[in-house]
């Protein structure tokens, strides 16, 4: 995930997705380099995380932060759901990988 906690956001970082307030209104749009006053505005609006360009690489490590047992369970369940898809095709396989991660993340939260 390219989400970064607001406390770790620094001036000059660039938004990778619009930041919305709790009512769904856009506070700041994609591509904006952040200034201190923006970060302050997010804080006041109750924003806790924002998406930052170039922070994608953290996503690769995400699987390693999840309990392998949970991950295995999610994988097994998804294999059944994906039985009519062509997983040899890399697009489907990537959706499979993301679905397993999303399910495992949900299961971790429930614990």
């Amino acid at each position, binding site marked *: *995930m390219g989400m970064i906690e607001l406390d770790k956001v620094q001036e000059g970082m660039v938004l990778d*997705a619009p930041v919305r307030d709790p009512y*769904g209104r856009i506070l700041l749009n994609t591509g904006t380099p952040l200034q201190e006053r923006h970060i302050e505005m997010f804080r006041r609006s109750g924003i806790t995380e924002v998406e930052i360009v170039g922070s994608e690489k953290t996503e690769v490590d995400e699987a390693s932060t999840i309990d392998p047992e949970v991950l295995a369970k999610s994988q097994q369940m998804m294999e059944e759901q994906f039985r009519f898809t062509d997983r040899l095709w890399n697009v489907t396989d990537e*959706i499979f990988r993301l*679905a397993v991660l*999303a399910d495992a993340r949900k299961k971790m939260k429930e614990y």
Partner: protein
Amino acid sequence: MAIPTKLIEGFRGTASLPIIYLKLHEAINDPYSSLSKVSAIISDDAGLSARLLKLVNSSFYGFPQRIETISDAVSLVGSKQVRDLALVTTMMKAFQGIPEDLIDMEMFWMHSMACGVGAKVISEMIGESQIERYFVAGVLHDLGRLIMYSKVPNESRIILERAKNEHRPMVDIEYDVLDCSHTEIGRALVDAWKLPSCFQEVVAYHHTPEKAQQYPIETAAVHIADIVVHALQYGTSGERFVPCMKKESWHKLNLSIDELPKLVRTIERDVESVVHLLQSEVTV
């Protein structure tokens, strides 16, 4: 054998159903329109007005004072959000009374809304300008299933059971049992409602997007959104398996595989914002 045009009888009367959506849509897109015009359209529908006021006074918004007028509500929630709320609430109302053992309606609308969000996110990623059309197309895509559940509940029960026991995609069994599928039934209703032809194609071809003639991009976007939200387990319309993706549709959208994590992330975020609309509806 079931004939789609026969099945939709009884729903024709609700032909005005999405009209309020289209009226709001027009008013919002008209640069000479105003907040008072949007409010007037909503005020014409007492049920919708009541729902909207209930929503803005719910804990989700948590406004400190009680909101008493429609125009205050519209300016606080946003006119586009109000329009989407209108679409889903009017549709939900039209399909009340479906036996609960067939489908959990909250799950059904969750799947529909998530698919709408998915199609909208895809349209933004490929630089389409009319993103709202993608949202509506996505919300409508499985409409035929609702008609199936309400008009032929016994056959629907057989279809669901056979799909489960035989481990086969539901859409295949629909053809076995009814000789047609939810795509053709949904199309017949969209035709009867005289909705824009874009929605006809998407509803008819979201499982066979290669057949779309006039709106191949919209159809491909909904086809892929349907698959992604299935994989992310947002609700269900009855189908238990992730549908198979057509390669041509993927290539048609010119999306790169590296954009998939972003697609998933954005869908997850945006679905959150429509979920509360849904919850407020189910409890109204």
